[in-house]
């Protein structure tokens, strides 16, 4: 079966051990988590895990089923890239002298639609949000000049379809 990128959105109680439980589900099936983000959600006291995996339809269904089965998980959804609006963020730390000595650098900043977060005496920091390939492109452009530090976040995503959590929570309470 063909492998695809999937984004899972897991709504859950905010519980100490839950991340361990969820990551164990991937571990047991020898499936790599490509990116993971944990945040609050649109509902009070409900957390949201956003997990990206590269796998087949069958496996994503299996995993979502196993995740949803965990007591503290309210509901898990999965979507293909077409079905979501998604982004990642990255920070680049670059030596300050480059900003002044290399004319190219200024162009890259402009073209890449990134923001300067801070400029210090020795370094400046650029922030960039977007698709993974846009961030990768920017990375490649900066690489020849030297990147002091680089970090990229996990994917965050919202689905085009509605995710009906509030209704579900009411249902569960009977």
């Amino acid at each position: 079966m063909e492998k695809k990128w999937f984004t899972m959105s897991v709504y859950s109680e905010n519980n100490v051990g839950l991340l361990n439980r969820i990551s164990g589900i991937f571990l047991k099936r020898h499936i790599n988590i490509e990116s993971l983000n944990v945040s609050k959600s649109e509902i009070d006291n409900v957390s949201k895990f956003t997990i990206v995996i590269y796998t087949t339809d069958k496996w994503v269904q299996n995993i979502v089923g196993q995740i949803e089965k965990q007591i503290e998980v309210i509901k898990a959804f999965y979507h293909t890239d077409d079905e979501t609006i998604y982004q990642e963020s990255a920070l680049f730390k670059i030596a300050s002298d480059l900003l002044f000595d290399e004319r190219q650098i200024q162009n890259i900043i402009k073209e890449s639609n990134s923001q300067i977060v801070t400029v210090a005496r020795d370094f400046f920091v650029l922030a960039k949000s977007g698709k993974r390939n846009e961030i990768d492109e920017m990375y490649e452009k900066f690489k020849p000049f030297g990147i002091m530090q680089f970090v990229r976040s996990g994917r965050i995503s919202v689905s085009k379809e509605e995710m009906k959590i509030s209704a579900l929570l009411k249902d569960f309470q009977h």
Partner: protein
Amino acid sequence: METLKEKQTESTTKKTITISGAEAIIHCLLAEGVDLLYGYPGGAIMPVYDELYKFQDKLTHILTRHEQGATHAAQGYARVSGKVGVAMATSGPGATNLVTGLADAQIDSTPMVCITGQVPRHLLGSDAFQETDIIGISTPVTKWNYQITTAAEIPEIMAKAFYIARSGRPGPVLVDITKNAQFEEFEFSYEKCTGVRSYNPTPKPSPNAIAAAAELINSAKKPFIVWGQGVILGKAEEELKALVEKAGIPAAWTILGASALDTDHPLNVGMVGMHGNYGPNLLTNECDVLIAIGMRFDDRVTGRLESYATQAKVIHFEIDPAEIHKNVYADVAILGDAKESLNLLLPKINKNTHESWHNIFKEKYQIEFDTVIKNDIHPTKAGLTMGEVIEEINIASGHKAVIVTDVGQHQMIGCRYAKFKQSKSNITSGGLGTMGFALPAAIGAKMGAMDREVVAIIGDGGYQMTIQELGVIFQHKVPVKIVVLNNDHLGMVRQWQELFFEKRYASTVMVNPDFVKIAEGYHIEAKRVSERKDLKETIQKMIASKDAYFLEVKVEQEDNVFPMIPSGASVSEVRLQ
């Protein structure tokens, strides 16, 4: 959690008393109807044991000889009684010794609550004496687990633990309690848990799915039912029988489904799976509608998935949504409790008989009888077979015993030939295949059904994995019957070596001790049978005994279990020899 709290504050008239966390644990157990638990003390759980001492008139604690024994005893108790089994252990090694039982209960959906002591909260994460991260260790093998670090959490968490263990698809829950929480005094009141907002244990069957299932069943020419433990856990034995009889459908069981329908019921066509019966395995690939009820298409049942029932429409009755389409695609999936779903289905089912289809099962049975069964239960060779021992136990117990099997050849033979008239009579480690399960599980089974005969059937290998539990049988005078089928080998592994590794018997030959003397050392009446002429009489004597009894039967050393679906083969490739 929120809901629980809300629910608790809503209920106004609650009695509160000021007690220690340790005493609170006892009150929680009593409130959940627990009167028996198994365990082993140690430093981090001593405050609770001190309370057990004070409450011994209300709550019986059985000291097993190893914490693994405590879990299997709790499992045996739960499986036979339908109640939640409880096991207790100290931190560190006590807790890690529970892991096998937790994994077994998880894969076999057995309701169990394990309570472990933990180092005091201020020492957590300091590598204190006997500190181990049992929450981390037990996470993959529990339905839920939780670490309590203050006494005030005890009532809510204990209530939730029992609720989760027994509801929906049951399973094991572990509650780890730091020692400071056991000592702390607090205002105790107890409220049973009736719901957890993120957890929907019993989905409601969809009327559309029920209608679709009825239509498929009513138009089927060669329908075939395979049921599993879900029927027993869902107390749907009567509904299963009603469906089988009304629609005239041949029905087979997975190993954990055994005893839900009378073995001698004319439409009960036997066991499916690796060492199941010939007909049901073979005909799985000939039926037109496969009705799976409370079973999860384990690989030991399906053989090679790509050639499992591909010709059939599959209807899957299942309580756990994660099982739907997991291994076998379901054309119709009915999510819900088996009893409720079958009750909705039954009125929509037309009366039918499928005589010519059923006759094919009978023909296949005859073939299996002539080539395998006859020689197993009425052997003509000199050496004793496991099958004839089971047959004598059937006769002596009148098909009424609870049969507890360990893991290996004797387990397959035991489950193939034991006859049952009553549900919850077949206790075995199915999904995990845990050697050492049977002896402690039989203790738990007997204590969960004191009015029933309990016979443990164990191999010489598995027996020695938990043999120390004879101490419990002796100390508490538990009248279980223990039958060791001694082939002086790790028989099942030896069989695979014979068939697939050109008889290279690597580490499967066992030089065994004098089992009779060992049993006698525990003051248990014991006997060894090596010849056929002594078998019947000894088994009758054993069954008639009011006390525990140990019987060693020296069986053929190199017998094999057939039929067999070699691993990775299709159910159609089931071998008779």
